[in-house]
């Protein structure tokens, strides 16, 4: 398998003298057709990584190429070959599902002759065809997420970035999105890059994972490899061992202080 996303010492530092390291010297390779999961606690640098690889923000160091395109030199090409489901995406709630997909298709230069048919297909695939003319403001959260995934696919990109695809969804909607990602990987052959801190999703979907903490990639490999590396029993244990957790006795320490309870 050939690498389709490659980063070398990719960094994004903020603040005076770059003291805040959102992403720090990230070395990563994601192979074609692979479903890769980037795990990390909140604020670890997952979203920043996705934004860097989608040319939404500019790196402060290192290099990266996506589908063979340099993220510094070929911004437009990178954007054309990637689809993005952002963590807190802005939907145009006053548009209908059809209008929103039509707009997204036009932004990505999908020819009009193809666009209409593709929108119809996507709406059917995502089970939203009957509500195609309803304004998005009336959609449930799960339905909105489906439309956003459809919009990320509207230009049929070979690489799909999904930033926390199930974090805001109820179990039923999350299950549906999970099935959808699986079928995109299995049947459509897409390369999928998932960012999440929900471990079961990553466990079920990803071929390989990377664990990022405080901007640094601290583990990389298959789930079994990472569990073995940390001598843990589960991915959750491995994750906590790598990123740090709170001891049980510390959690309840406050109760022992006098006067804490009334």
């Amino acid at each position, binding site marked *: 398998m050939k690498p389709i996303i490659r980063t070398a010492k990719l960094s994004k530092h903020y603040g005076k003298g770059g003291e805040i390291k959102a992403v720090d010297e990230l070395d990563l390779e994601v192979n074609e057709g692979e479903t890769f999961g980037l795990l990390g606690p909140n604020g670890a640098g997952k979203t920043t990584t996705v934004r860097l690889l989608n040319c939404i923000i500019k790196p402060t160091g290192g290099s990266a190429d996506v589908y063979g395109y340099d993220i510094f030199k070929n911004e437009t090409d990178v954007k*054309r070959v990637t689809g993005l489901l952002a963590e807190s995406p802005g939907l145009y709630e006053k548009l209908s599902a059809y209008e929103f997909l039509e707009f997204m298709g036009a932004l990505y230069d999908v020819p009009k002759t193809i666009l209409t048919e593709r929108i119809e297909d996507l709406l059917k695939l995502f089970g939203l065809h009957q509500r195609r003319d309803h304004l998005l403001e009336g959609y449930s959260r799960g339905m909105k997420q489906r439309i956003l995934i459809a919009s990320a696919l509207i230009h049929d990109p070979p690489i799909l970035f999904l930033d926390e695809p199930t974090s805001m969804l109820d179990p039923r909607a999350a299950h549906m999105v999970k099935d959808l990602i699986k079928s995109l990987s299995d049947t459509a052959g897409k390369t999928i890059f998932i960012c999440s801190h929900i471990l079961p999703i990553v466990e079920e979907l990803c071929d390989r994972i990377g664990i990022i903490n405080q901007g640094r990639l601290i583990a990389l490999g298959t789930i079994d490899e990472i569990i073995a590396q940390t001598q843990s029993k589960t991915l959750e244990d491995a994750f906590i061992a790598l990123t740090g957790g709170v001891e049980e006795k510390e959690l309840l320490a406050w109760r022992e202080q006098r006067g804490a309870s009334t």
Partner: protein
Amino acid sequence: MPAPKWLIVAKNEYRIHTSSMRSLRRIFPYIAVGLLAVYVVFLAPAIFSYFFDDFTAFIITQAAAPTVQLVLFMLFFYFIIFPITNTLREEQTDQLEIFLAAPVKPSDVLLGEFLGVMPFYGIVVVVLAGSFTALLTPLGLDLAQIVITIAVFCLTFFSALWIGTVTAAILRSKLGKSARGKDIGKALAMIIALPLVAVMYALLGGGLLSTLTNPNISGIVRTVLNLIPSSWGAEVFVHFASNPGNILAVGWAPFLFFGGLSAFFLAVLFLGVKGANRAYSLETTSFTASRAKPDGVFYQVVRILGGSDSFGTLLVSLFKDYGRRLENLSKIIYMVGLLIVLNLFLIDPTNPEGGLVMMQFILPLLSVFIVGEVTLRGKGSLFIYKKAPSGVGRLVKARLLKGWLIVMPISLIAVVATAVTNPAGVLSFMLFSIGMLMSTVAASVAFVLGLFLLNPAFSDKSGNYMVNIMITMQVLPIGTFLVPMIIFRTILQLSLYDALLYFTVPFSWILGILILYLGKRRLSRIE
């Protein structure tokens, strides 16, 4: 060949703004153009023909040029702040990610967003241009003068709207990514209109116009005004109106002003497109997290006023939550600014009763800003109190006390300032007026708190919020002040003292307590 990206964005914006009339979307432009044509060709000339004689007499006076300059300046300024205020009130950066992830240039997004709303701004511009042209045409302007007049309007207002759109996009990008930034944005949206209000009151009060027409004292003001592009348009109008029908007789001046205005439009357009990259960015701008400092003297005093026990803590918490939102502080600044402007320009020092009446109408708005936010944080914030033992009663008591502690000192300063500017004021009358007014202000705090609990507004854009403001600003002062004044003074021939003493003050308190009681009951039942 794919459509230009700015056109795609513009089409999308148009769709968003017409989503409430989707069935009319296709025919809306034709309806709008048809109605505007009827207004410009028939209605405006018919309406403004009634003012023609007055206007003809006015346009040759010394006041014509500064008046037109000021009117155009106010419209110019308003068109700049309108998009900014709209954006700052509801900053959304989520959609930025859609554009930034797509192969589209920021300048295309900016231009598209501008052109997408242009049909709606265009309606306003056409109505204004049509009205002015209807006023000027009967003077005998020739076709070239009319065309240039319309072009001046379009250049002036579209420049202003473009400046407003670019500034709004940059502010959204800078402020919309953090809670603190959003708060700053809302605060700016509140006070950004204050200069416009000041100019409007100065114009209404007559002070500004007399200053501008006085050749001895108008130097700096006029110079500053002349630097603003809207004034160049005003110069064109006044030159044409003074020499109607003969474009060559007016000399080079209007053409220079028109050329300057055109150059200004092109320059702002160019700079806006160049600055578009700054307007569309998701780069984090600040990592400074706001931190609470230890309680200072102010909070310690508030705690003592609250009784130093748990109620004192509750009161201090309310003050902290209120005071740490710049949006709230900006409302206080706005009100203080408004009261200063009123005192400077509108209240006649020789007519203390007029000032009193004005204060009766303005000060309840201060109560709205201070205690009307009781429900604005949503039901969740109310349920915290409902869950706590005696929570509802304590919420009402704490909010009332907080309202009085903020509203009363500000109102006192404003009322005293109004009273002492009266050169012929009698001390006893002044003290009496101040006392009566402060008493009604205190009652209005109770009334407003009760009203916002009775008719909760969970957003300052909700219909309930507007209804409550209308009731507070209109019904309350008219019912408790104006009507009794008419009844007691005109019919019963009582003095102002008696009217205030026997009706306004007691009735304000009865009403305030009653509405507060009903509001508290409603809060107990809110689900």
